[in-house]
């Protein structure tokens, strides 16, 4: 189980994947908006998205777990 964490404080702009979806390493799974910039968050590993903890317009802090991937 790999946790995808927020790289910085910001607002969730898009969630690009759904639970159960297969993702590849390096795929942009979530886009945050922070300080008027779009910050892409990538999956570090390939696998299946097992849970998504956030939805669009949620505010997240650095290191918050956004979603989990089972390799």
């Amino acid at each position, binding site marked *: 189980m790999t946790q995808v964490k927020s*790289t*910085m*404080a*910001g*607002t969730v*702009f898009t969630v690009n994947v759904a639970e159960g979806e297969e993702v590849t390493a390096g795929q942009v799974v979530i886009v945050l908006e*922070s*300080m*008027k*910039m*779009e*910050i892409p968050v990538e999956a570090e590993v390939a696998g299946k998205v097992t849970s998504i903890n956030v939805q669009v317009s949620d*505010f997240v802090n650095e290191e918050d777990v956004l979603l989990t991937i089972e390799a």
Partner: protein
Amino acid sequence: MDKILVANRGEIALRIIRTCQRLGIGTVAVYSEADSDMPFVKEADEAFLLGPAQVQQSYLQADVIIDIALQNGVDAIHPGYGLLSENAEFVRKVQQAGIAFIGPDADTIDQMGDKIGSRVTMQAAGVPVVPGTDEGIASLDEAVQAAQDIGYPVMLKASAGGGGIGMVRCEDEQALGQHFQSVKSRAKAYFGDDVVFLEKFIADARHIEVQVFGDHAGNVVHLFERNCSVQRRNQKVIEESPSPHLPQEAKDRLYQAAVDAAKAVAYKNAGTVEFIVDNNNDIYFLEMNTRLQVEHPVTEQVTGYDLVEWQIEVAKGNELPVKSQAAITSTGHAIEFRIYAEDPVKFMPSPGAITKLDWGDTTGVRIDSGYVEGGKVTPFYDPLISKVIVHAPTRSEAIERSKAFLSQVGVVGLKTNIPFFDKFLASEDFLAGDYSTAVLATWFEKQKGETIK
């Protein structure tokens, strides 16, 4: 005009408040919960809390801001830049409340905010525009067809977009296919309008803009140009005036086109006409910004005028403080550096507390800062901490002074892009001055493997 409400935050709010103080005009600040300790809140005569940190719940609360103005005897509202500054609906509401808006008319903002519409208006006025589509593009098929006619690379842009958001450069049909829907949906999300269009991407171009000013009597003047070519993600980091290596003949064409553009829409107050200049010095209208810009101090330093004071005069219904173009002159060379809370290598935002902020010796340097030591840069707003503007008799002297100044600034607590400036100012690309908007990308390629400390 006895009292002005500043509907903004940070360095621009403070900068407007200082001009009001000098002119003996009272000031009202509005702020979010995240900004209660900011210098602009403390320095205003009165200050009112708008709401939580998020801009939708604070700085974009148009009705709350107008209510505060009405209840506190405010004569005019200055919107700064960003936030509500180019929101025509806000302008109409302010004026309906019997309060002056310090900026252009709502109709002009609408007209220029629609990038497709402004292209058409400018063509009709004889101002050259970048080759592109003069209508919105509904489908990918249409986009592919139009891009073939225009020729790759193309810029795919949101008609309502701005500030570098909602535009993507596409090298070929595959890239266009990949980005078409996402630019449309981003345009919808950010600007509430998903109309997109295409423009030819002009390689090795310089981004040069002309400051213009108009009044209710129909006077229009320009205050020379700013070179805005050092950009990352289509957002500017360094601006300078005058533009290095641009022949006087090309400058004269830019000034004429900018004044023609402003006259075509009976422009009132401060505005900026943005152009792309290619390596043949051919000029193309890009867009008009209907507000005071982040980089306006560069123009203030070379012309000696206070543009906020001019804005207030025009908003009062007075004619321009200087109506004769010949009387407006530019002296020396000015460079503005935007000090951002960001990683100096990847340019990623780095919010945090500023535990130490020591500018050192500020002789001959103008600092427009939104923050002081002990302040906190939160993730809710843009990462701009301060602007540093250096003015000297020549460009090389301005660069030398900038290097000496920036190298002795001490910031602790968060990352800033000052180390980037320290390195970039020594680069031949910048020193030569003959650089395009690609200068940073090119420079980064050369830097690979090196560390910026």
